[in-house]
């Protein structure tokens, strides 16, 4: 504060035009979104689903779809059933790709998580 007084800056009458300040509730909340998140989520098991489960699901859904469509081939239920088959087949193929991509080489897996360690450093140039 001494520097202020020494240089003669009058704090009481600031030179800038001050419009009435809007209460900054919303931006403040948005700046710290983690502060306002409720922490009472269910604790979920974080294990990724295995491939066999998905294959079983695919098989079961195809069975169901065939049954639903046997009654009425153009109903919404039939279409939704085949859509489910498609969704599960896509999930199954993604799981297969993921399994093929990762998990084959332990060094690759380690290095994808820790690229800065000595074993994993690559020199491109």
């Amino acid at each position, binding site marked *: 504060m001494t*520097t*202020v007084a020494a*240089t*003669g*800056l009058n*704090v009481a009458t*600031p*030179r*800038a*035009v*001050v*419009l009435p*300040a*809007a209460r*900054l509730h919303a*931006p403040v909340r*948005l700046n710290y*979104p983690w502060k306002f*998140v409720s922490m009472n*989520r269910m604790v*979920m098991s*974080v*294990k*990724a*689903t295995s491939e066999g*489960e*998905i*294959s079983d*699901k*695919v*098989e079961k859904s*195809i069975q169901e*779809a*065939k049954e639903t*469509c046997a009654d009425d081939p153009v*109903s*919404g*239920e*039939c*279409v*939704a*059933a*085949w*859509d*489910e*088959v*498609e*969704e*599960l*087949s*896509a*999930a*199954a*193929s*993604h*799981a*297969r*790709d*993921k399994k093929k991509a990762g998990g084959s080489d332990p060094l690759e897996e380690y290095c*994808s998580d820790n690229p800065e360690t000595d074993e994993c450093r690559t020199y491109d140039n």
Partner: protein
Amino acid sequence: MAAVSTIYSTQALNSTHFLTSSPSSSTSKQVFFYRRHQSQTNRRFNTIITCAAQQTVVIGLAADSGCGKSTFMRRLTSVFGGAAEPPKGGNPDSNTLISDMTTVICLDDYHSLDRTGRKEKGVTALDPRANDFDLMYEQVKALKSGIAVEKPIYNHVTGLLDAPELIQPPKILVIEGLHPMFDERVRELLDFSIYLDISNEVKFAWKIQRDMAERGHSLESIKASIEARKPDFDAFIDPQKQYADAVIEVLPTQLIPDDNEGKVLRVRLIMKEGVKYFSPVYLFDEGSTISWIPCGRKLTCSYPGIKFNYEPDTYFDHEVSVLEMDGQFDRLDELIYVESHLSNLSTKFYGEVTQQMLKHADFPGSNNGTGLFQTIVGLKIRDLYEQLIANRATVPAEAAKA
């Protein structure tokens, strides 16, 4: 013009004041530097320095069935550098991919009905009734303005909506799924949009390749699945291609008569003319019609070879340029030869397209037009991003001078 909404009391002579600009002006933060001359003159020196607070570029990609791990996304994120991975420590079934510069959001996360809900109502995931477009619009808008959001997760394995995950606003946001361009408000937010149009024969061939390994599936079940979804697809998803800035159309080859294996593909890159910051790729002469077979004396290709076509055209009442490639690459020198004859690729150095293709030689489509055009679109998006950022940085500076 920056309206002063709050001012904090001056603590030192040469201090900086953080002023949040009013909502009506630009979203970038503006830092006012106040300096008083020792000579007590009445002149004030105000230097405005703008820190562009997170001007996110939003890209939309429309593609059928499944999202998050697709090849296009991996190529795109690779162009910007770094590998895209699911968020660490979160839900392992999350569909989101995050790299240094990009975040890819799967629009399946905005399903309003989970799998049982859809089965009860008899709607497919393609139906807009199964998606919450209001939430999609709000969250994409928030991310675009630099605000983090809690985005729901749709678990493709269980078919349920899991607890939301926190998404930080990235530099480039890619929204991928079935309906990025369906809702008009979301469409307005997109800086660039792409539609992957796979023809029915190719779709059938690809699905056979994908699903025949699954027990329970047979040719009939695959066919039934495609046909059951077709009416909804044609009604809701297909019309989006008229809004796309770039359409990648994948068709069966014309080089092999009666080919039904779907291994060799004819791929057309349809690029809309007149899109800001997007200059279409061309072959030899812009706006002319060229048919080019690179295989000959200088380049030897194996069967069935490569054929290129370039022509201007109209697509849903828009002027477009179409670059088409039919055939397959077998060797590196074919790829570099083709790259050296294409113009307006937005590469930073000679051979960048080839390098990107080689980097991901194990991805599907690396030997044909799908990989090539996906890589080129990735470079175009990088170019668009750099131009957009440069433009947004200069605009406030000009406004300050005025």
